[in-house]
Every structure is written in C-alpha cells, then in structure tokens.
C-alpha cells in the first residue's frame, strides 16, 4: 500500500494534485475504487482499504483517489460541483490506467463511464441528502432551535448549506440532488457480501468476512 497522487483537473483550467492510496504492481487487472461519500466515506474507509489489501493478494492492483474537497484534498468542498467530481474520477482512471471501476455506495454515482463498473450497495444522491438534512434537523432541535426540512432545502438550493459538517455549495446541491447511479454496472448487493452494511454503523467499524466476500466477488468478476 503506497500513498500516491494524481493530477486532477480544476474546473477553471489547470491541474492540482490530489491524494490516492494505491496498490500498484503493474498487473493487468487495475481497479479504480470510487469511495463512499461524506459521513459514509469515513465509516467505510477502513473497510474499503481492507478490500484493497485482499484484491492485492488476489492479483489485482487498486487505486483509491480522493474526491476534490474530501479527505486529504486541499480544495474547498463548497466550490465543488458533481460534474467536477465526474471529471476528477475520469482523470484518476486515466492516470492510473484503470481497467475496471468499483463504486462504493455514493461513489457509484461517479464511476467513470468508459470503465466496466461494479457497484457495491449503490444509493441515489437524493437518499444521501435526505439523511444529511434529517441529521441537521435533529441536531438543530437538540440545540434548541427548530429548522424545517423545506427551509433547509430551499436555502441549500439558493445559497448552499452545511450538512453534517460538509459545506455543500448551491450548485453542488442542485446538480447532485437528481443524480442516480448509471444502470449498466454490475450491482453487488449486501446480501452477496453477508451481514449488514457497515455504512449503517453509528461508528466506523470493520468486518473481515465482508471484506473477504466483496474482494472475492470483484476479483472473480474482473479476472473471469
């Protein structure tokens, strides 16, 4: 496992380096892993890396880039747009010469179209936002002031909003809200992986059995 970087295009032109974690031994199968988003991204990160370790042992290289504005990225999240994220993942795929893509949860919204994709437990953008808005309603109520869902979404679309600690710009919110995963990917359902999804956990967790199962499914699909 090596920390690496890749040239990510900036929306206004130019390039900024973004971080990626890679297992690269110049092998044939090369999987771009598009990570889960926001809070789920934190909860799923260790699991994701555990899957990469297993893919490495199964003879597959893998690459886990950051979305600009997330994880180690120095770009401001509030200036991002989903179209930039699509371009970013396409650029990462080119840089690492990926042969396949594996999307995890919300990451399935951004698997590059030119790659054969597998989607693990894909989710619509609207479901991700619904939960983040609900968390904000609950947090506000807990701190003694009421906020209505309609007011939050109106404000998000007009001026952008911070949800669960993530500053989302108005453009991001508007464009992201309607996104659904592409329909030509091979879907890997949680039942195939066993147990309950780790994105449900209140705290980040790991599960060796689930990591074994997901890596085996991915390795079998791309080396078939």
């Amino acid at each position, binding site marked *: 496992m090596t920390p690496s970087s890749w040239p990510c295009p900036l929306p206004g032109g130019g390039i900024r380096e973004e971080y990626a974690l890679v297992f690269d031994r110049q092998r044939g199968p090369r999987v771009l892993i598009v990570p889960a988003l926001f809070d789920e991204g934190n909860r799923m990160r260790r699991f994701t890396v555990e899957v990469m370790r297993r893919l490495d042992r199964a003879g597959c290289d893998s690459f886990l880039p950051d979305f600009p504005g997330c994880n180690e990225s120095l770009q401001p999240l509030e200036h991002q747009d989903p179209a930039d994220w699509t371009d970013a993942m396409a650029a990462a795929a080119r840089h690492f010469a990926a042969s396949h893509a594996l999307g995890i949860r919300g990451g399935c919204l951004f698997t590059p179209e030119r790659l054969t994709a597998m989607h693990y437990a894909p989710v619509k953008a609207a479901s991700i936002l619904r939960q983040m808005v609900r968390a904000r309603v609950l947090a506000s109520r807990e701190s003694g002031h009421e906020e209505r869902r309609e007011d939050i979404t109106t404000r998000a679309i007009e001026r952008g909003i911070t949800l669960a600690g993530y500053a989302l710009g108005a453009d991001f919110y508007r464009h992201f809200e309607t996104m659904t995963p592409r329909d030509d990917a091979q879907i890997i359902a949680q039942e195939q992986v066993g147990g*309950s999804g780790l994105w*449900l956990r*209140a705290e980040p967790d790991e599960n060796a059995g689930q990591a074994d199962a997901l890596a085996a499914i991915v390795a079998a699909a791309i080396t078939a």
Partner: protein
Amino acid sequence: MSDETDLQLRRILTDVLGLQPGQADDFDADTGLFGHLPELDSMAVAGLLTEIEDRLDIMIDDDEIEGEMLETYGGLLAFVEGKRANA
C-alpha cells in the same frame, strides 16, 4: 405484527450499533438510547430512522421525531408500532 416489529427493530439497532448477535435481546422498554449511548449522535439517529423507514416500510416525518420516542427502546418501539398500525 407487534412481535415482528419488535424483532425487526432489535435487528436494526444491532446493525446500527454494531452489537453482537443476541445482545439486543436484553433491551427492555427502559433501555436508554439517544442521550444514553454516545455513539448515537444526530447523524446516527438520522441513519437509524432511515433504516427503520426502509425495512418496516413506513415514512417518518421530521415533525414526528421527538425526544421522548428516541430516549428509550420502549419509546421507539411504541412509536414504530403506532406508525405501522396506521400505515
């Protein structure tokens, strides 16, 4: 249906809290949830409610979410049973 709701709710809490199988069997009506378990912050509760909606096929309005229903296992169960009875 009531027993089934109880069973499902224990399963969901097991998944959200990362409990060992069987651990949620010890929950009783007074077992404390939100405000008692540090890992149940607002994001986790939002996830919990969304999962309840998905698995029990109900819709929960934000206005319906009150401290009382989240405070204990009994409160949450009563709320969910009420929702299912009216569904």
